[in-house]
């Protein structure tokens, strides 16, 4: 009995890897140029794109059912709310 789960092509994985390395070089390049206030936002935005690629393709999330996608989404919402509470609290403590 063969197990389930999507079969992702070698080619797809290699293309994702090329994109990941390109994004890494881009983020190092941006940091070296030092474009002011984008210094914090840009690397984190690029890191999130990279994370999306790893989740979707390497971790097969794109090919999974709704359950795992909702699970991840709920955790991210919880962490966002938690962050908000933390920053709210820290802000008031001064």
């Amino acid at each position, binding site marked *: *009995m*063969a*197990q*389930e*789960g999507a*079969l*992702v*092509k*070698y080619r797809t*994985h*290699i293309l*994702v*890897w090329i994109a*990941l*390395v390109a994004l*890494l070089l881009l*983020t*190092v390049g941006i*940091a070296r140029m*030092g474009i002011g206030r984008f*210094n914090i936002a840009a*690397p*984190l935005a*690029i*890191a999130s794109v*990279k*994370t999306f690629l*790893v*989740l979707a*393709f*390497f*971790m*097969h999330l794109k090919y999974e059912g709704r*359950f*795992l996608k909702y*699970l*991840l989404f709920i*955790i991210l919402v919880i*962490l966002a709310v*938690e*962050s908000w509470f*933390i*920053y709210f609290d*820290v802000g008031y403590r001064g």
Partner: protein
Amino acid sequence: METKLSRDYAGAKIGMWLFLLSEVSFFFGPLALYTIFRYRHPAEFRSASTELNLTLGTLNTVILLTSSLFAALSVSAIKKGREKASALLIALTAVLGAVFLFIKYIEWSAEIGRGFYPGSGALFERGKGEVLYFGLYYFLTGMHGAHVFIGVVLLSITAVLISRRTVNTNDYIKLENSALYWHLVDIIWIYLFPLFYLIS
């Protein structure tokens, strides 16, 4: 009485994902702390960051991304019935993980050698922000390193299991879950790298 070993592919995978999400929560705490301290000591975080070796950090990121590629290819290979290729690819993933740890060891040795370690007098003279930066740096990269080490052991065991055909083209959830763990370790590094190396 004949006992039947029941296998639950979906259940095993959901269990792994729940574990991975608990790992995310674990790293969330110190990362939240990082954002607060960086907000309070922006200049000191910037100057502390220049003490890291960006070349080695970038190289290590490429190594980890490539190891993740090999892990993903290994899963695809076993699904296609190419068990030998799958075992080789997952073994290569483990080797790259070990290379990552070796480079991290070189980096840490250099930093500790220059007096940047928790509790060092040289660090105290440079100010509170830098003490906090290096405290978080060693904690987070240290915890990540521990995960890489566990991953290398796990992937090596998986490679042996494939070569013994315990894990095979009809039963590969152990490989898939080990690969999922490895990708999470990769994702954590994807965030740690810009947060510590790319401030200045």
